[in-house]
């Protein structure tokens, strides 16, 4: 398990290689990459600033990954979340999961993303014409997280 909170960009190919190279026990590898979109609803976005809570952020990500590892057989997990100033098209977050089985790899990656949205202390401020605005926490994120609570949805 490896978790990073960083300003620097990341390379998906490099991260994936670090998880799988030299191994032949992995059957399924899932990656999720979140990117800055140039639109939010009807508004043009010209950039985004990501603020975080140093120390607590890393621990929150470690805890989320540890929880995923108790639920699914994971052979490797990589989480990278950027902070600072980003532009449309920039990568924000990477979650990569490796497992013998594809259902587990998919479920774990979705689980980590859902939990990360509501439990990792990051805050997005979108740059819109005339200023900036803090992104509202979406009810959709709370319900995406809630679906992982008992009964457990996936044991395939």
């Amino acid at each position, binding site marked *: 398990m490896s978790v990073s909170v960083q300003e620097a960009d990341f390379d998906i190919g490099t991260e994936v290689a670090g998880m799988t190279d030299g191994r032949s026990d992995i059957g399924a590898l899932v990656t999720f990459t*979140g990117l800055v979109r140039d639109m939010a609803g009807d508004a043009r976005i010209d950039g985004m600033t*990501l*603020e*975080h*809570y140093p*120390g*607590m952020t890393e*621990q929150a990500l470690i805890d989320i990954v540890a929880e995923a590892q108790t639920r699914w057989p994971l052979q490797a997990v990589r989480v990278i*979340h950027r902070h600072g100033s980003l532009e449309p098209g920039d990568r*924000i*977050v990477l979650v990569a999961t490796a497992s013998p089985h594809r259902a587990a790899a998919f479920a774990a990656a979705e689980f980590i*993303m859902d939990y*990360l*949205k*509501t*439990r*990792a*202390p*990051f*805050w*997005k*401020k979108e740059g819109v014409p005339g200023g900036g605005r*803090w*992104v*509202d*926490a*979406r009810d959709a*994120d709370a319900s995406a997280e809630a679906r992982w609570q008992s009964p457990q949805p996936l044991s395939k």
Partner: protein
Amino acid sequence: MDVLYFAWVRERIGLPRETVETEAASVAELVEELRGRDPRYAAAFEDVSALRVALDQAMADFDAPLAGVREVAFFPPMTGG
């Protein structure tokens, strides 16, 4: 006690962190104290339901006790990912 502010809480108060001397027994009492300081704090703490609090970097409730706590952080719901 260190008190940290993030996102629009930080912007409304005008600083990211400060050291606060307080006798407050709970988060709610600390919020009352801060709210009474000046209009910037009053604006930041206007609607506590829009806020979250962490004690020593772990999420907590507003009625949580402050005994032994070294770091309190106030922020809006998280929006990462």
